[in-house]
Protein backbone atom coordinates (compact mmCIF):
# COMPACT_ATOMS: atom_id res chain seq x y z
CA UNK A 1 0.00 0.00 0.00
CA UNK A 2 1.32 3.42 -0.80
CA UNK A 3 -0.14 6.87 -0.81
CA UNK A 4 0.97 7.95 -4.26
CA UNK A 5 1.57 5.82 -7.28
CA UNK A 6 2.77 6.26 -10.85
CA UNK A 7 0.04 5.15 -13.22
CA UNK A 8 0.46 4.63 -16.95
CA UNK A 9 -2.56 4.52 -19.21
CA UNK A 10 -3.44 5.38 -22.78
CA UNK A 11 -5.77 8.22 -23.62
CA UNK A 12 -7.05 8.28 -27.21
CA UNK A 13 -4.11 6.04 -28.15
CA UNK A 14 -1.38 8.12 -26.50
CA UNK A 15 0.50 7.03 -23.40
CA UNK A 16 -0.09 9.21 -20.35
CA UNK A 17 1.93 8.96 -17.12
CA UNK A 18 0.51 10.37 -13.93
CA UNK A 19 1.53 10.29 -10.29
CA UNK A 20 -1.56 10.29 -8.16
CA UNK A 21 -2.94 9.31 -4.74
CA UNK A 22 -5.47 6.49 -4.42
CA UNK A 23 -8.47 8.70 -3.81
CA UNK A 24 -8.04 10.70 -7.03
CA UNK A 25 -10.79 10.01 -9.57
CA UNK A 26 -10.03 9.37 -13.21
CA UNK A 27 -12.03 12.52 -13.98
CA UNK A 28 -9.86 14.71 -11.75
CA UNK A 29 -6.61 13.11 -12.87
CA UNK A 30 -7.34 13.45 -16.59
CA UNK A 31 -8.74 16.98 -16.41
CA UNK A 32 -5.58 17.93 -14.50
CA UNK A 33 -3.57 16.51 -17.42
CA UNK A 34 -5.49 18.79 -19.80
CA UNK A 35 -8.21 16.46 -21.01
CA UNK A 36 -10.85 19.05 -20.24
CA UNK A 37 -13.17 17.63 -22.88
CA UNK A 38 -14.25 15.29 -20.06
CA UNK A 39 -16.90 17.29 -18.21
CA UNK A 40 -17.50 17.39 -14.49
CA UNK A 41 -21.16 17.58 -13.50
CA UNK A 42 -22.53 15.92 -10.39
CA UNK A 43 -19.40 13.93 -9.49
CA UNK A 44 -21.58 11.16 -8.07
CA UNK A 45 -22.58 8.99 -10.99
CA UNK A 46 -25.91 10.65 -11.73
CA UNK A 47 -25.41 12.79 -14.82
CA UNK A 48 -23.00 11.04 -17.20
CA UNK A 49 -21.20 14.27 -18.21
CA UNK A 50 -17.90 12.62 -17.27
CA UNK A 51 -18.42 9.42 -19.29
CA UNK A 52 -15.39 7.93 -21.06
CA UNK A 53 -14.79 4.57 -22.67
CA UNK A 54 -12.54 2.36 -20.54
CA UNK A 55 -11.30 -0.48 -22.74
CA UNK A 56 -14.33 0.27 -24.91
CA UNK A 57 -16.84 0.16 -22.06
CA UNK A 58 -18.55 3.40 -20.98
CA UNK A 59 -18.04 4.35 -17.33
CA UNK A 60 -18.53 7.49 -15.25
CA UNK A 61 -14.98 8.76 -14.71
CA UNK A 62 -16.09 10.64 -11.57
CA UNK A 63 -16.70 7.35 -9.74
CA UNK A 64 -13.73 5.52 -11.25
CA UNK A 65 -10.34 5.75 -9.57
CA UNK A 66 -7.33 6.79 -11.65
CA UNK A 67 -5.51 3.77 -10.18
CA UNK A 68 -8.12 1.49 -11.71
CA UNK A 69 -7.29 2.77 -15.20
CA UNK A 70 -3.69 1.57 -14.95
CA UNK A 71 -2.58 -0.13 -18.16
CA UNK A 72 -5.95 0.48 -19.80
CA UNK A 73 -7.29 2.43 -22.77
CA UNK A 74 -9.36 5.55 -22.19
CA UNK A 75 -11.31 7.12 -25.05
CA UNK A 76 -12.70 10.63 -24.70
CA UNK A 77 -14.89 12.50 -27.18
CA UNK A 78 -11.71 13.82 -28.83
CA UNK A 79 -10.70 10.24 -29.55
CA UNK A 80 -13.80 9.74 -31.69
CA UNK A 81 -13.18 12.55 -34.17
CA UNK A 82 -12.53 16.25 -34.67
CA UNK A 83 -13.98 19.05 -36.77
CA UNK A 84 -12.01 17.93 -39.85
CA UNK A 85 -13.09 14.34 -39.55
CA UNK A 86 -16.03 14.03 -37.17
CA UNK A 87 -17.56 10.79 -36.02
CA UNK A 88 -21.03 10.26 -37.53
CA UNK A 89 -22.43 10.89 -34.04
CA UNK A 90 -20.65 14.23 -33.74
CA UNK A 91 -21.91 15.19 -37.20
CA UNK A 92 -25.48 14.19 -36.39
CA UNK A 93 -25.48 16.08 -33.07
CA UNK A 94 -24.43 19.24 -34.93
CA UNK A 95 -26.98 18.78 -37.69
CA UNK A 96 -29.98 18.06 -35.50
CA UNK A 97 -29.23 20.58 -32.77
CA UNK A 98 -28.65 17.72 -30.35
CA UNK A 99 -26.15 19.96 -28.60
CA UNK A 100 -27.25 23.30 -27.16
CA UNK A 101 -25.04 24.47 -24.29
CA UNK A 102 -22.99 21.37 -25.03
CA UNK A 103 -22.12 20.48 -21.47
CA UNK A 104 -23.71 17.02 -21.58
CA UNK A 105 -22.61 16.35 -25.15
CA UNK A 106 -19.21 14.65 -24.65
CA UNK A 107 -20.70 12.14 -22.21
CA UNK A 108 -23.85 11.74 -24.27
CA UNK A 109 -21.86 10.92 -27.42
CA UNK A 110 -19.58 8.52 -25.53
CA UNK A 111 -22.60 6.60 -24.20
CA UNK A 112 -24.20 6.64 -27.66
CA UNK A 113 -20.97 5.41 -29.25
CA UNK A 114 -20.89 2.44 -26.88
CA UNK A 115 -24.48 1.65 -27.81
CA UNK A 116 -23.83 1.77 -31.57
CA UNK A 117 -20.71 -0.37 -31.20
CA UNK A 118 -22.80 -3.07 -29.57
CA UNK A 119 -26.09 -2.56 -31.39
CA UNK A 120 -25.94 -0.98 -34.87
CA UNK A 121 -29.73 -0.95 -35.22
CA UNK A 122 -31.08 0.35 -31.93
CA UNK A 123 -34.78 1.03 -31.44
CA UNK A 124 -35.85 4.32 -29.87
CA UNK A 125 -36.31 2.41 -26.63
CA UNK A 126 -32.79 0.97 -26.85
CA UNK A 127 -31.45 4.52 -27.31
CA UNK A 128 -33.43 5.88 -24.37
CA UNK A 129 -32.21 3.06 -22.16
CA UNK A 130 -28.58 3.45 -23.24
CA UNK A 131 -28.71 7.19 -22.49
CA UNK A 132 -30.71 6.99 -19.26
CA UNK A 133 -27.55 7.70 -17.26
CA UNK A 134 -26.90 10.95 -19.17
CA UNK A 135 -28.79 14.05 -18.14
CA UNK A 136 -29.38 17.05 -20.40
CA UNK A 137 -30.85 20.30 -19.09
CA UNK A 138 -31.28 21.96 -22.49
CA UNK A 139 -32.53 19.86 -25.36
CA UNK A 140 -35.46 17.91 -23.94
CA UNK A 141 -33.70 14.85 -25.40
CA UNK A 142 -35.76 14.62 -28.61
CA UNK A 143 -32.99 16.01 -30.81
CA UNK A 144 -30.45 13.80 -29.06
CA UNK A 145 -32.42 10.63 -29.79
CA UNK A 146 -32.86 11.82 -33.38
CA UNK A 147 -29.11 12.41 -33.71
CA UNK A 148 -28.33 8.88 -32.52
CA UNK A 149 -30.84 7.43 -35.00
CA UNK A 150 -29.32 9.43 -37.86
CA UNK A 151 -25.78 8.42 -36.87
CA UNK A 152 -26.82 4.78 -36.68
CA UNK A 153 -28.19 4.99 -40.19
CA UNK A 154 -25.06 6.76 -41.48
CA UNK A 155 -22.87 4.10 -39.92
CA UNK A 156 -24.95 1.34 -41.50
CA UNK A 157 -24.66 3.00 -44.91
CA UNK A 158 -20.93 3.40 -44.39
CA UNK A 159 -20.75 -0.30 -43.57
CA UNK A 160 -22.69 -1.26 -46.70
CA UNK A 161 -20.51 0.95 -48.90
CA UNK A 162 -17.32 -0.57 -47.51
Amino acid at each position, binding site marked *: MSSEKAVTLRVNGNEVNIITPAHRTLLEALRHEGFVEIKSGCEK*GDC*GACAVLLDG*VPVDSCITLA*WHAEGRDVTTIKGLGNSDSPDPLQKAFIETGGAQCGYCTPGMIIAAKALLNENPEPSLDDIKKA*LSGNLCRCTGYTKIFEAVQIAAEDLRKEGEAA
Partner: protein
Amino acid sequence: MLPRFELSQPQTLPEALKALAGGVGQPLAGGTNLFPDLRGGREKGDTFISLSQVGELRYIEHTDNRVTLGSGATISDILRDPQMKIAAPALVAASDIFAGAMVRNAATIGGNVCCGSPSADSVPPLLTLGADVTLASASGERTLPLDEFYLDYKKTVMKPDELLASISWTPPTPGSAHLFYKLSRRKGDAITITGISVLVEAEGGKCKTVRIALGSVAPTIFRAHEAEGMLAGRVLTSELIEEAAQSAAGQCKPISDNRASAEYRLLTAHSLTRRLLRQAWKQAS
Protein backbone atom coordinates in the same frame (compact mmCIF):
# COMPACT_ATOMS: atom_id res chain seq x y z
CA MET B 1 -13.30 15.38 -4.46
CA LEU B 2 -13.20 12.16 -2.50
CA PRO B 3 -11.80 12.22 1.02
CA ARG B 4 -8.26 10.90 1.24
CA PHE B 5 -7.92 7.13 1.65
CA GLU B 6 -5.43 4.32 1.25
CA LEU B 7 -6.11 1.52 -1.17
CA SER B 8 -4.66 -1.94 -1.54
CA GLN B 9 -5.11 -3.77 -4.81
CA PRO B 10 -4.89 -7.54 -4.25
CA GLN B 11 -4.66 -9.59 -7.43
CA THR B 12 -6.02 -12.89 -6.10
CA LEU B 13 -8.73 -14.01 -3.69
CA PRO B 14 -6.27 -15.33 -1.04
CA GLU B 15 -4.47 -11.97 -1.15
CA ALA B 16 -7.77 -10.13 -0.71
CA LEU B 17 -8.80 -12.36 2.21
CA LYS B 18 -5.40 -11.86 3.84
CA ALA B 19 -5.78 -8.09 3.50
CA LEU B 20 -9.26 -8.29 5.08
CA ALA B 21 -7.95 -10.48 7.92
CA GLY B 22 -5.71 -7.58 8.92
CA GLY B 23 -8.78 -5.95 10.40
CA VAL B 24 -8.25 -2.60 8.69
CA GLY B 25 -9.93 -1.97 5.42
CA GLN B 26 -13.30 -2.41 3.82
CA PRO B 27 -13.96 -4.05 0.45
CA LEU B 28 -14.36 -1.76 -2.53
CA ALA B 29 -16.04 -3.25 -5.60
CA GLY B 30 -17.50 -0.98 -8.31
CA GLY B 31 -17.57 2.01 -5.98
CA THR B 32 -20.97 3.13 -7.29
CA ASN B 33 -22.33 3.18 -3.74
CA LEU B 34 -19.15 3.86 -1.85
CA PHE B 35 -17.82 6.82 -3.81
CA PRO B 36 -21.03 8.89 -3.79
CA ASP B 37 -21.47 8.02 -0.09
CA LEU B 38 -17.88 8.94 0.81
CA ARG B 39 -18.20 12.17 -1.07
CA GLY B 40 -21.50 12.97 0.61
CA GLY B 41 -20.12 12.15 4.07
CA ARG B 42 -22.61 9.29 4.57
CA GLU B 43 -19.80 6.77 4.64
CA LYS B 44 -16.50 6.98 6.49
CA GLY B 45 -13.40 4.94 5.87
CA ASP B 46 -9.75 5.61 5.24
CA THR B 47 -8.62 2.19 4.05
CA PHE B 48 -10.14 0.16 1.24
CA ILE B 49 -9.33 -3.16 -0.35
CA SER B 50 -10.14 -3.10 -4.03
CA LEU B 51 -11.71 -6.28 -5.38
CA SER B 52 -11.67 -5.11 -9.03
CA GLN B 53 -8.51 -7.00 -9.92
CA VAL B 54 -9.59 -10.24 -8.26
CA GLY B 55 -10.59 -12.12 -11.40
CA GLU B 56 -11.75 -15.17 -9.40
CA LEU B 57 -14.74 -13.17 -8.17
CA ARG B 58 -16.06 -12.13 -11.58
CA TYR B 59 -17.87 -15.04 -13.20
CA ILE B 60 -21.27 -16.52 -13.95
CA GLU B 61 -21.55 -20.30 -13.88
CA HIS B 62 -24.45 -22.48 -14.99
CA THR B 63 -24.16 -26.14 -14.04
CA ASP B 64 -26.78 -28.89 -14.21
CA ASN B 65 -29.13 -27.54 -11.64
CA ARG B 66 -27.38 -24.56 -10.11
CA VAL B 67 -26.48 -21.03 -11.09
CA THR B 68 -23.60 -19.28 -9.36
CA LEU B 69 -22.80 -15.59 -9.63
CA GLY B 70 -19.37 -14.49 -8.48
CA SER B 71 -19.77 -11.36 -6.35
CA GLY B 72 -17.68 -9.40 -8.86
CA ALA B 73 -20.10 -9.99 -11.75
CA THR B 74 -21.50 -6.64 -12.85
CA ILE B 75 -25.12 -5.80 -13.57
CA SER B 76 -24.10 -5.58 -17.25
CA ASP B 77 -22.56 -9.08 -17.04
CA ILE B 78 -25.95 -10.38 -15.87
CA LEU B 79 -27.71 -8.68 -18.80
CA ARG B 80 -25.20 -10.09 -21.27
CA ASP B 81 -25.59 -13.68 -20.08
CA PRO B 82 -27.96 -15.42 -22.52
CA GLN B 83 -29.04 -18.11 -20.02
CA MET B 84 -29.98 -15.71 -17.25
CA LYS B 85 -33.43 -14.96 -18.76
CA ILE B 86 -34.39 -18.55 -17.92
CA ALA B 87 -32.30 -18.96 -14.78
CA ALA B 88 -33.55 -15.76 -13.12
CA PRO B 89 -36.16 -13.82 -15.13
CA ALA B 90 -36.89 -11.29 -12.38
CA LEU B 91 -33.19 -10.63 -11.81
CA VAL B 92 -32.85 -9.80 -15.50
CA ALA B 93 -35.90 -7.53 -15.27
CA ALA B 94 -34.35 -5.73 -12.29
CA SER B 95 -30.97 -5.43 -14.03
CA ASP B 96 -32.59 -4.05 -17.15
CA ILE B 97 -33.89 -0.95 -15.36
CA PHE B 98 -30.98 -0.68 -12.93
CA ALA B 99 -29.35 2.78 -12.89
CA GLY B 100 -27.94 3.90 -16.26
CA ALA B 101 -25.53 2.23 -18.67
CA MET B 102 -22.32 3.57 -17.11
CA VAL B 103 -23.28 2.61 -13.56
CA ARG B 104 -24.45 -0.85 -14.70
CA ASN B 105 -20.99 -1.43 -16.18
CA ALA B 106 -19.28 -0.73 -12.85
CA ALA B 107 -21.86 -1.88 -10.28
CA THR B 108 -21.35 -5.42 -9.01
CA ILE B 109 -23.97 -7.83 -7.73
CA GLY B 110 -21.82 -8.26 -4.61
CA GLY B 111 -21.91 -4.53 -3.89
CA ASN B 112 -25.66 -4.45 -4.40
CA VAL B 113 -26.26 -7.34 -1.98
CA CYS B 114 -23.68 -6.19 0.60
CA CYS B 115 -24.63 -2.51 0.74
CA GLY B 116 -27.71 -3.58 2.67
CA SER B 117 -29.80 -0.83 1.15
CA PRO B 118 -33.58 -1.41 1.36
CA SER B 119 -33.79 -0.31 -2.27
CA ALA B 120 -31.16 -2.69 -3.71
CA ASP B 121 -32.96 -3.96 -6.79
CA SER B 122 -31.24 -7.32 -7.22
CA VAL B 123 -32.21 -8.47 -3.74
CA PRO B 124 -35.99 -9.08 -4.04
CA PRO B 125 -35.46 -11.29 -7.14
CA LEU B 126 -32.61 -13.18 -5.43
CA LEU B 127 -34.75 -13.71 -2.31
CA THR B 128 -37.63 -15.16 -4.34
CA LEU B 129 -35.17 -17.52 -6.04
CA GLY B 130 -34.29 -18.80 -2.56
CA ALA B 131 -30.66 -17.86 -3.20
CA ASP B 132 -27.77 -18.74 -0.88
CA VAL B 133 -24.78 -16.52 -0.20
CA THR B 134 -21.27 -17.84 0.33
CA LEU B 135 -19.05 -15.75 2.57
CA ALA B 136 -15.29 -16.23 2.57
CA SER B 137 -12.57 -15.28 5.03
CA ALA B 138 -8.95 -16.31 5.48
CA SER B 139 -10.14 -19.03 7.85
CA GLY B 140 -12.72 -20.61 5.53
CA GLU B 141 -16.12 -20.32 3.90
CA ARG B 142 -19.73 -20.47 5.05
CA THR B 143 -22.93 -20.63 3.06
CA LEU B 144 -26.28 -19.39 4.32
CA PRO B 145 -29.64 -18.40 2.87
CA LEU B 146 -29.76 -14.78 1.67
CA ASP B 147 -32.96 -14.67 3.74
CA GLU B 148 -30.76 -14.82 6.88
CA PHE B 149 -28.17 -12.31 5.67
CA TYR B 150 -29.78 -8.99 6.65
CA LEU B 151 -30.05 -7.94 10.30
CA ASP B 152 -31.17 -4.33 10.10
CA TYR B 153 -30.81 -1.19 7.98
CA LYS B 154 -27.43 -1.58 6.24
CA LYS B 155 -26.48 -4.32 8.75
CA THR B 156 -25.65 -7.84 7.67
CA VAL B 157 -24.29 -10.97 9.36
CA MET B 158 -20.97 -10.48 7.55
CA LYS B 159 -17.95 -10.14 9.84
CA PRO B 160 -15.28 -7.48 9.15
CA ASP B 161 -12.83 -10.14 7.90
CA GLU B 162 -15.37 -11.70 5.51
CA LEU B 163 -16.38 -10.90 2.00
CA LEU B 164 -19.21 -12.12 -0.17
CA ALA B 165 -17.70 -14.63 -2.57
CA SER B 166 -20.75 -15.81 -4.51
CA ILE B 167 -24.52 -16.12 -4.73
CA SER B 168 -26.16 -19.30 -5.97
CA TRP B 169 -29.60 -20.75 -6.56
CA THR B 170 -31.54 -23.50 -8.27
CA PRO B 171 -33.27 -22.07 -11.35
CA PRO B 172 -37.08 -21.99 -11.27
CA THR B 173 -38.76 -25.00 -12.87
CA PRO B 174 -39.90 -24.50 -16.47
CA GLY B 175 -43.33 -22.90 -16.60
CA SER B 176 -43.02 -21.11 -13.29
CA ALA B 177 -43.32 -17.33 -13.00
CA HIS B 178 -40.59 -15.13 -11.56
CA LEU B 179 -41.52 -11.45 -11.61
CA PHE B 180 -40.17 -8.10 -10.42
CA TYR B 181 -41.84 -4.72 -10.31
CA LYS B 182 -39.99 -1.51 -9.56
CA LEU B 183 -42.13 1.46 -8.69
CA SER B 184 -40.11 4.62 -9.30
CA ARG B 185 -40.41 8.15 -10.66
CA ARG B 186 -39.04 7.11 -14.04
CA LYS B 187 -37.81 3.99 -15.78
CA GLY B 188 -34.07 4.59 -15.87
CA ASP B 189 -31.67 5.87 -13.23
CA ALA B 190 -34.18 6.06 -10.40
CA ILE B 191 -34.21 4.85 -6.81
CA THR B 192 -36.95 2.36 -6.03
CA ILE B 193 -39.99 3.57 -4.08
CA THR B 194 -41.44 0.08 -3.74
CA GLY B 195 -39.81 -3.04 -5.24
CA ILE B 196 -41.62 -6.38 -5.27
CA SER B 197 -40.63 -9.80 -6.53
CA VAL B 198 -42.78 -12.91 -6.66
CA LEU B 199 -42.06 -16.50 -7.67
CA VAL B 200 -44.85 -19.01 -8.27
CA GLU B 201 -44.43 -22.66 -9.25
CA ALA B 202 -47.65 -24.55 -9.95
CA GLU B 203 -48.26 -28.29 -10.06
CA GLY B 204 -51.52 -30.14 -10.66
CA GLY B 205 -53.54 -26.93 -10.61
CA LYS B 206 -52.18 -25.88 -7.23
CA CYS B 207 -49.48 -23.51 -6.11
CA LYS B 208 -46.50 -25.68 -5.25
CA THR B 209 -43.91 -23.06 -4.34
CA VAL B 210 -44.43 -19.38 -3.70
CA ARG B 211 -41.97 -16.75 -2.53
CA ILE B 212 -42.68 -13.05 -2.02
CA ALA B 213 -40.05 -10.39 -1.31
CA LEU B 214 -40.57 -6.70 -0.64
CA GLY B 215 -38.01 -3.92 -0.98
CA SER B 216 -37.88 -0.25 0.10
CA VAL B 217 -40.75 -0.68 2.55
CA ALA B 218 -38.82 -1.62 5.72
CA PRO B 219 -35.28 -1.23 7.13
CA THR B 220 -34.29 -4.37 5.22
CA ILE B 221 -35.63 -6.16 2.19
CA PHE B 222 -37.62 -9.13 3.49
CA ARG B 223 -39.55 -12.29 2.58
CA ALA B 224 -43.26 -12.30 3.45
CA HIS B 225 -43.19 -15.78 4.99
CA GLU B 226 -46.63 -15.59 6.53
CA ALA B 227 -48.23 -14.65 3.22
CA GLU B 228 -46.30 -17.42 1.47
CA GLY B 229 -47.65 -19.90 4.04
CA MET B 230 -51.22 -18.84 3.24
CA LEU B 231 -50.76 -19.66 -0.44
CA ALA B 232 -48.55 -22.75 -0.58
CA GLY B 233 -50.40 -25.90 -1.66
CA ARG B 234 -53.60 -23.99 -2.52
CA VAL B 235 -55.47 -22.83 -5.58
CA LEU B 236 -54.78 -19.09 -5.73
CA THR B 237 -58.20 -17.47 -5.80
CA SER B 238 -58.60 -13.68 -5.84
CA GLU B 239 -59.74 -13.78 -2.20
CA LEU B 240 -56.71 -15.76 -1.11
CA ILE B 241 -54.35 -13.49 -3.03
CA GLU B 242 -55.97 -10.45 -1.41
CA GLU B 243 -55.49 -11.95 2.06
CA ALA B 244 -51.86 -12.75 1.33
CA ALA B 245 -51.21 -9.24 -0.04
CA GLN B 246 -52.74 -7.80 3.13
CA SER B 247 -50.51 -9.97 5.25
CA ALA B 248 -47.42 -8.93 3.30
CA ALA B 249 -48.35 -5.26 3.67
CA GLY B 250 -48.84 -5.85 7.38
CA GLN B 251 -45.15 -6.73 7.67
CA CYS B 252 -43.99 -3.44 6.11
CA LYS B 253 -42.42 -0.71 8.24
CA PRO B 254 -42.05 2.02 5.65
CA ILE B 255 -40.57 5.46 6.14
CA SER B 256 -41.38 8.76 4.45
CA ASP B 257 -38.58 10.34 2.46
CA ASN B 258 -38.15 12.67 -0.49
CA ARG B 259 -39.31 9.97 -2.90
CA ALA B 260 -42.58 8.91 -1.26
CA SER B 261 -44.58 8.95 1.95
CA ALA B 262 -44.85 5.94 4.24
CA GLU B 263 -48.59 5.75 3.44
CA TYR B 264 -47.93 5.58 -0.28
CA ARG B 265 -45.31 2.88 0.19
CA LEU B 266 -47.73 0.80 2.28
CA LEU B 267 -50.53 1.21 -0.23
CA THR B 268 -48.33 0.28 -3.17
CA ALA B 269 -46.71 -2.66 -1.33
CA HIS B 270 -50.21 -4.06 -0.88
CA SER B 271 -51.50 -3.43 -4.40
CA LEU B 272 -48.30 -4.45 -6.17
CA THR B 273 -48.01 -7.70 -4.21
CA ARG B 274 -51.61 -8.46 -5.20
CA ARG B 275 -50.94 -7.54 -8.82
CA LEU B 276 -47.76 -9.60 -9.07
CA LEU B 277 -49.32 -12.64 -7.37
CA ARG B 278 -52.27 -12.54 -9.79
CA GLN B 279 -49.98 -12.17 -12.77
CA ALA B 280 -47.63 -14.93 -11.56
CA TRP B 281 -50.49 -17.35 -10.86
CA LYS B 282 -51.99 -16.70 -14.29
CA GLN B 283 -48.63 -17.26 -15.94
CA ALA B 284 -47.72 -20.39 -13.98
CA SER B 285 -51.04 -22.23 -13.69
